[in-house]
């Protein structure tokens, strides 16, 4: 409990630091939002008036704390290019991205853990070698290219889904879920390959330790040793890795949303970056940073619960 509180306080400080850095970075870059909004032809008086109206003529720290205060209550201001509040813009897209990341995470775990355990259990067999080779191949494919290949195979040749035909959440929940299965698969596949590799080698290195021999000598079967002893011990490194994968998946969904034209956070982020719509970019970056830190926090706490050795050191 004490550990969790300490971690949460560290997390809040990190977030505060990130929010400051983000605000600072987007305020020192050249280019004035007021000029950008009015065009280069605008008179200096007009630009000055708009700057005043947008609150850009006030001191840096005043603006930072105002922005931070807004961020805490999810008020990130108004988007420059959409003329709607940032939270409205993001709020409707966030569930899509989170669902995509969640789906791919589930898919990855469902594929990777049984296959990894199987490969380790049958080390050196033909199937194990086949899994290793396929794994290596999958890891060399750039993620967006695997997305394109999946669109080509499942969308255009097998016609399981209509590329670009995303159905909204509100229209049909199952239709939406079905469409998201394909981008989720594209995100999950390379990550599953990495997890299989890690789980296999982690299981095998655990299996060489003394306690395994002891467990065998007490008359345990291979299955019992594997599930009760080895798996438990190798889960710690796998958990840390899974947490990293989840954060990678949130980033990966930015690309997959583009490939499968899913209207999520990633698409908004890309259009806002190209359109220099800074309030939206800042809000999304802060949001993603929050998600990344949250996932790392949860994984640290889970490791702490899983492994009594880490618990004692604190």
């Amino acid at each position: 409990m004490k550990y969790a509180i300490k971690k949460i306080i560290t997390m809040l400080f990190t977030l505060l630091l990130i929010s400051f850095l983000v605000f600072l970075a987007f305020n020192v870059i050249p280019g004035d939002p007021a000029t950008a909004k009015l065009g280069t032809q605008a008179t200096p008086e007009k630009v000055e008036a708009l700057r005043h109206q947008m609150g850009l003529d006030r001191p840096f720290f005043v603006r930072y704390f105002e922005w931070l205060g807004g961020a805490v209550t999810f008020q990130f201001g108004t988007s420059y290019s959409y003329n709607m509040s940032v939270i409205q813009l993001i709020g409707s897209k966030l569930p899509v991205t989170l669902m995509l990341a969640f789906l791919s995470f589930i898919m990855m775990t469902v594929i990777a853990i049984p296959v990894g355990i199987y490969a380790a259990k049958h080390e050196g067999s033909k199937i194990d070698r086949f899994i290793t080779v396929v794994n290596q191949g999958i890891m060399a494919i750039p993620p967006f290219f695997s997305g394109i290949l999946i669109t080509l195979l499942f969308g255009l040749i097998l016609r399981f889904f209509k590329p670009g035909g995303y159905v909204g959440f509100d229209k049909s929940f199952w239709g939406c879920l079905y469409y998201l299965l394909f981008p989720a698969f594209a995100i999950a596949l390379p990550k599953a390959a990495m997890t299989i590799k890690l789980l296999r080698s982690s299981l095998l290195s655990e299996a060489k330790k003394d306690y395994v021999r002891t467990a065998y000598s007490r008359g345990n079967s291979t299955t019992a040793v594997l599930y009760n002893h080895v798996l438990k011990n190798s889960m710690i490194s796998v958990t840390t890795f899974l947490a990293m994968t989840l954060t990678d998946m949130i980033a990966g969904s930015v690309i997959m949303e583009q490939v499968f034209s899913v209207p999520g956070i990633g698409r908004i982020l890309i259009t806002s970056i190209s359109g220099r719509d800074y309030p939206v970019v800042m809000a999304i970056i802060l949001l993603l940073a929050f998600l990344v830190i949250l996932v790392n926090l949860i994984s640290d706490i889970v490791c702490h619960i899983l492994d009594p050795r880490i618990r004692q050191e604190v």
Partner: protein
Amino acid sequence: MANTNMGKTITAKAQNKKAFGLKLKIFKDKKTNFYVGLGITAFFLLITIVGYFWTPYNPNAMDVDAKYSAMSFTHLFGCDNFGRDIFSRVVSGLGTTFFVGLGTVLIGGLVGIIIGAICGYFGGLVDEIGMRIMDALYAFPSLLLALVFVSLLGSGKYQVIIALGIAFIPSFSRIVRAEYMRCRDLDYVKSARLFGASHFRVIFVHILPNITPVLVSSAIIGFNNAVLAEAGLSFLGIGVQPPDASLGEMLSSAQSFLFSTPWYALCPGIVMIIMILGVSLMAEGVE
């Protein structure tokens, strides 16, 4: 105490990530892996250098009659929706890819070495502060970091190099730091100090050459990751900008013609996979 613990978890993460970077092992023998990888990479490098001076067609020239034409001897990889020769575009795209990859490794590597060396060699408070910042950066997926820097710097070839270079500093600096921590108490470092060598000299003249193998291997892996990241950014339309050809940008425009002209997407994609495979094999062999 909580801090040391956090440090440990993060180190464990780093090891995972390092061990699971793009490294492939197809052949059992390390030497074979290396030579096959070197062969593939050298082949692509040669094509890129030749492509710098001569390509079968002008990569940007449009031929209306050749629109959507399939793979043939006149157009090796076929033509795209504007009638541009895909092979010539792939070759000039490879040039951009190599340039961005090398630039990224150079920036990320140089700054990473300096930060890692100072943190690892001196330790103490400098190390604590430097590594805390690097750890915080390291927790973020590098694509996300690159996106942040691209949104700050704008898009284009040089901006992408700077953005990716900065995004790659943390991973380089942690590897270098670990090596310096290992080396700083070794006998040859102590005797160099006894002979009156300055810290600067010990760091760059005595220790640096000794950690070259690690540096080379991580530079190769970094190059691969940079190639992938550049392709990703260009695919999203915020990386390398036209008229510069880039494999990622080609894949992104090929998407709309996936059904009618599948080779438009497949050719650049497969070229990229083979190149990554080659570089990965080389990385495996170098160790």
